[in-house]
């Protein structure tokens, strides 16, 4: 192997395909669904279910593959189109990552194959961890699961569940719910359960009104004696009792197993962030060039204008975030542990795109603030990347623990 920044033929082909989707399918309806919060984007969902999910047809199939980097490239492209519509795509999404990471082969088949079948109606996957009293501190969740005969009985309230409307209602979909079997066991007592859409006892009680990504359905789900089959638990049933002090020995499929989902999802969220940031930056550069203003990369510092410096800084920051993302993804492809690098990418991308999109509004002057242009929307959309999948601070915490060799007890 050798250091290389060449995307493979098939990544380029697929990037071109998704760019076209972003441009022709997403951008034209982007403003509409930002205005009409909670409206169902029928045309987008239909397009994606009929065509988009199959991905590019034809194109190079053999030859080397960028593996997981390619997934990141696709996410960037689609979020360059519209990050909210990306989250509304009928896919297993984060719920799928959880099933893939912690589920058995049988479970993967049972819950995921539906998404690839040519027939059927659109469906969604979702992941429900967050509760009113537990966000960053996921180990503090209070939703309970209790075994009754051959069924798990779930009780509790989940908030901020992305795609929660689709996943809880549309047939074929599912919500992966985190619940505790034994609160006294702490993290070790936490397990995840697949709750199929339409399961009695799972109720959609509301959708959030948000700063951005408004077309994404962010749901509150209540579970009242919600029963799922025993085989819907992901990973092992038994609760390993906490050893005194240390938490390093928690069984893999337990809390740690569930957390491993983030090693895959954080690079994707980082890539999504980069997509939104790039949308703003591309627009700024196009607009500046339309005004006859070219960025001179070779101009001496004293002679560069403030805007030129800003744009160069934005480009460098965005590219640093993108490369950190690709690095984490490429480690994933090779099966190299990447929690540290995934958190680095997420922390960096979340922060820089927040700054870049805010700067873009500033650079564009009065029009930048107007809803006639999209940059104000991209600024609102971008901010979520600094919050979900672990806030900026939580990812800093993870990076800090790793580089210092501290446990979660030593650095809280």
């Amino acid at each position: 192997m050798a250091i290389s920044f060449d995307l493979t033929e098939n990544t380029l082909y697929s990037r071109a395909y998704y760019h076209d989707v972003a441009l022709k399918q997403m951008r034209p309806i982007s403003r509409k669904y930002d205005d009409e919060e909670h409206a169902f984007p029928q045309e987008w969902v239909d397009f994606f279910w009929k065509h988009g999910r199959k991905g590019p047809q034809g194109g190079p199939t053999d030859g080397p593959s960028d593996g997981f980097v390619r997934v990141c490239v696709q996410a960037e492209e689609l979020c360059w189109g519209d990050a909210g519509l990306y989250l509304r795509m009928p896919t297993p999404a984060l719920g799928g990552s959880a099933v893939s990471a912690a589920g058995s082969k049988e479970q993967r088949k049972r819950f995921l194959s539906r998404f690839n079948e040519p027939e059927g109606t659109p469906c969604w996957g979702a992941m429900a961890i967050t509760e009113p009293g537990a966000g960053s501190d996921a180990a503090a969740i209070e939703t309970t699961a209790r075994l009754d005969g051959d069924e798990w009985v779930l009780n509790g309230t989940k908030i901020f569940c992305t795609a929660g409307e689709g996943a809880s209602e549309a047939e074929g979909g599912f919500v992966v719910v985190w619940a505790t079997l034994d609160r006294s066991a702490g993290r070790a007592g936490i397990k995840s359960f697949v709750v199929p859409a339409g399961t009695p006892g799972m109720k959609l009680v509301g959708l959030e009104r948000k700063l951005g990504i408004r077309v994404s359905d962010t749901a509150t789900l209540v579970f009242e004696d919600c029963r799922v089959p025993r085989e819907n638990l992901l990973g092992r049933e038994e609760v390993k009792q906490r050893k005194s002090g240390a938490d390093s020995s928690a069984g893999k499929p337990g809390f740690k197993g569930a957390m491993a989902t983030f090693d895959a999802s954080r690079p994707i969220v980082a890539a999504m962030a980069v997509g939104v940031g790039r949308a703003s930056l591309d627009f700024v550069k196009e607009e500046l060039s339309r005004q006859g203003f070219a960025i001179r990369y070779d101009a001496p510092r004293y002679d560069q204008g403030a805007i030129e410096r800003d744009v160069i800084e934005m480009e460098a920051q965005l590219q640093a975030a993108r490369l950190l993302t690709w690095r984490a993804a490429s480690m994933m492809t090779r099966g190299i542990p990447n929690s540290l690098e995934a958190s680095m990418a997420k922390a960096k991308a979340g922060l820089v795109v927040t700054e870049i999109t805010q700067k873009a509004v500033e650079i564009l002057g009065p029009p930048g603030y107007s809803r006639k242009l999209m940059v104000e929307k991209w600024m609102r959309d971008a901010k979520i990347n600094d919050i979900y999948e672990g806030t900026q601070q939580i990812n800093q915490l993870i990076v800090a623990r790793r580089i210092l060799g501290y446990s979660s007890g030593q650095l809280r």
Partner: protein
Amino acid sequence: MIDFQPTEEQQLIIEVVRQFAGNELRPIARDCSELREIPAKVLAQAHELGLVATSIEESHGGGGERCAVTGCLIAEELAHADLALALAILSPALIALPVCDLGSEEQKSAHLPAFTRSQFVPGSLAVVEPDIRFDPLAPRTRARAQDGGFVLDGTKCFVPWLEGGTQVIVIAATERGPRPFLISRDCPGLSVVPERNMGIDALPTVELTLEGVFAPADALLGPDDDRAVRSLIDRGRVGLAATAIGVARAAYEVALEYAKEREAFGAPIATKQAIAFKLADMAIEIDGARLLVWEAAWKLDQGDTVTREATLAHCQARRVALEVADGAVQVLGGHGYIREYLPELHLRNARGFAAFEALALV
């Protein structure tokens, strides 16, 4: 295919350079800085590693393995031990590499062999000028065509000037734009005054004054247009950016170790988020900037023009070096301000990246 793994050979080179830097350079860095001198023995030892000679074409006695990515890996490792020592050790490149890139066969035959022999011969490159409005592509130093050659006038600064060097490359403006000239250090009309700067103290540098210095026609390096200087600056920024990563990493590591040892309020300061998060940000910023440097270097190796990438990498790396070095001083508190600890040296060195515009290190 996207890949972030150095080749096995590169990993081997990193290992060798890292060991040398850790054993031979790091321990003397502080003393070299205080005494403002570098033991000739260390330069000779480093020279034996053949770090520059490897890049020189085989037909001129070198190793024929020119690779900007490898060059960046080496530059980072050396600068991680000490920036001044790194620049001194790599100084032969300041002449050898531009001659490889731009020189005619005659120029190569005349100047390259000096750098492939067993004796260490330093090089010199004069880019920067003592001027607030300095522009590397529009230097005030002039080269007027005269008598079948050129006459150079002007003042340069931050010119590495180690003992034993015989040549210097000077960037000067002709009527048709900036050009590099390779001239002898003892030309009549050329005079030097040793400099004292805020940092990088161990590296001897001079302010170089040229008064009616005659350069024969064959002193001109490269094609008779802007490309020569542009590529020299682009490459020079990438190489310098790689050393900035080394400085940042050195400061970060000192801070990290210190933070785990130092106790305040009954616990290591690293257990406080204000410190731990600062360290996390340093790690993230260093890795991000390094990848920008690698990307620019990789593009150089593809034969592409890298003005944009070099600028992005250079801007990012020098910002990160300064911020990380400053952060390291902060993590050490009052001790960070004391010359017994390294971060203050890292901080003074890191600010130097604002002055040294470009050095042909890779």
